């Protein structure tokens, strides 16, 4: 268990800058998720922490010790790879005990620690099998077992669930989370899947283009995205965004889009400012023609059982609306929506930065 800190960390491949001077701290025992679209540098950052990539500039410290020039094996970390990277010629037992064997641990100690890890992960019946004889989920568990056996200061996960099917992914998600709650080891977890990030993380680092967009707890990111990128990246279905001009008259405010639709807005920004107007799909409320309502026309109705997703044309924009329960609406129906200004997110049109609140 240990805190991890990144201080002005940068990475260049040739002349391409893939990490642009990143600083942040991970607390002792924290489950930190690095999330972002592919190519944002999250995996590179993790690999620099693991000692698999040289650090071009800045420092990375584990438990207060700068590890820039410390070999991977001396950083006291364990890593779970996307492809699991199990040694195909070793049994599950040998795979899990390999790191201890390399450290010349006693045979009895290796056995005891492998058994302990196997018990935690329900792998006892498979100890003498080879990786090729295991299912995807079992291999995933062996990869985790290999990490647990080490009892390292930090666990690193590099997109560990991407190779699993959707159902197994959900199951393994909660297993990893439960494991963390049990072991309380500092964990750095890289994923491109924001749902994974939201459901597992204590805190999330959203990365884009080699830089940090925002750091915060899942709900902070959801409720108060710092910028348009985070707003659109976090949340599923994604936040609806339209572009228009902020009109502030007296106490009320709205954003007027080029097609003439007026979107109710709250505080923040100045009159006449070009803004991006964001509202999450579950913050549009169907109303029965009363005032004030934004009028729209139903394009598609997608029932999922407990909820119904509507694709609605409002002005020139296609807006996603999530309603609870079922609906009798049909494509072509005209409806009205109420939007609580408190749930509206305003971002500067040019910079994408959040306008207060």
């Amino acid at each position, binding site marked *: 268990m240990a805190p991890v800190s990144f*201080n*002005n960390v*940068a990475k260049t491949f040739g002349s391409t800058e893939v990490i642009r*001077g990143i600083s942040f701290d991970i607390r002792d025992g924290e489950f930190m998720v690095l999330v972002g679209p592919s190519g944002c540098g999250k995996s590179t950052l993790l690999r620099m922490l693991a000692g698999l990539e*040289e*650090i*071009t*500039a*800045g*420092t990375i410290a584990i438990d207060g*010790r*700068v590890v*820039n*020039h410390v*070999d991977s094996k001396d950083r006291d970390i364990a890593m779970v790879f996307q492809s699991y990277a199990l040694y195909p010629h070793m049994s599950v037992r040998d795979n899990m005990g390999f790191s201890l064997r390399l450290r010349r641990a006693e045979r009895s100690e290796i056995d005891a620690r492998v058994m302990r890890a196997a018990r935690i992960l329900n792998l006892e019946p498979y100890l003498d099998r080879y990786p090729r004889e295991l299912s995807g989920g079992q291999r995933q568990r062996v990869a985790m077992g290999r990490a647990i056996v080490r009892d390292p200061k930090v666990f690193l996960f590099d997109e560990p669930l991407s190779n699993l099917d959707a159902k197994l992914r959900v199951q393994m998600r909660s297993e990893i989370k439960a494991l963390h709650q049990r072991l309380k080891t500092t964990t750095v977890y890289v994923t491109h899947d924001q749902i994974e990030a939201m459901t597992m993380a204590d805190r999330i680092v959203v990365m884009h283009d080699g830089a940090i967009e925002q750091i915060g707890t899942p709900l902070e990111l959801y409720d108060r995205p710092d910028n348009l990128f985070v707003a659109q990246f976090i949340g599923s279905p994604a936040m609806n965004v339209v572009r228009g001009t902020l009109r502030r008259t007296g106490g009320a405010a709205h954003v007027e889009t080029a097609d003439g639709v007026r979107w109710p807005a709250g505080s923040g920004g100045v009159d006449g400012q070009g803004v991006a107007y964001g509202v999450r799909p579950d913050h549009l409320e169907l109303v029965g023609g009363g005032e004030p309502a934004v009028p729209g026309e139903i394009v598609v109705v997608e029932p999922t059982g407990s909820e119904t997703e509507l694709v609605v044309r409002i002005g020139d924009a296609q807006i996603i609306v999530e309603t609870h329960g079922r609906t009798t609406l049909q494509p072509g129906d005209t409806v009205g929506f109420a939007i609580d200004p408190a749930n509206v997110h305003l971002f500067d049109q040019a910079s994408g930065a959040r306008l207060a609140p």
Partner: protein
Amino acid sequence: MSTVALPGVEAATADGGPRRRLSPWQAWGLALLAPYVAVFLVFVLYPVGYGLWLARHPQSYVQLFADPVFAGSVVNTLIFVVVGINLKMAAALFLSGFFVTARPWIRWLSVLFILPWAVPSIPTILSIRFMLNPEWGVVNQVIFRLTGADGPNWLNDRWIALSMAMLVHIWKSLPFWTMILIAGRLAIPGELYEAASVDGASVWQRFRFITWPSLSTLYLTSAILSMIWTLGDFNSVYLLTGGGPADLTHVLATLGIRYLRLDQVDLAMATIVCALPLVLPLVYFMMKRLSR
């Protein structure tokens, strides 16, 4: 971006670039590469450099070109390569088609067919040499029994002997190239042939429009590689004819060794230098192809 110097950490270079000290990984990389590098330097680079140095005298070439054996060897080499390669590769292409036919007995035959390649060449070439013996060899005895006439003195005539050496070469290397082309044919998706059958393609059309386009690159590469190896084939000529009769069947590969045995190392190296214009373009082609 400059790095902050931290206590207890080796100073990184100003731009965070590579450190001067080798990491254990780089050190081991060099250590594991070293044996081959040593082999290359000691047994390839130095000998070749030394050999080229020996071949530096212009009068070696004057002497070489004046030797009628050399001119004859160049002609023989060209014939050997051009005729040999084309016969061999055409046969390999044809036989690869034969061997991919699914019949149990053809599978068995294909196992036997590899024998000439799997067996060392010396005893088999000597076996063929005796078969061609004008008096006691089985070939001429069969000819005599069938026609009552004496067969030719196979190895005592330049052109017959050279042809026989070529046949020996083909006998030895045909299985290998057939196997390569079989692998190439098996890599062609079967659906293509099924589609062609549905479209009513004849055997020739199937070859012309499906097999050949998929196989032509492999065929060309094989032919080039085979050409390099054929240029270096010492055994087929030396063990069958010994270069005879009267040094008329030498090729460049055996001629170099002949000069070496006669202690004329300068001429031996000059012979090899003269073969380089033939070999190097082919080597260049193969290196390009493999380094892609």
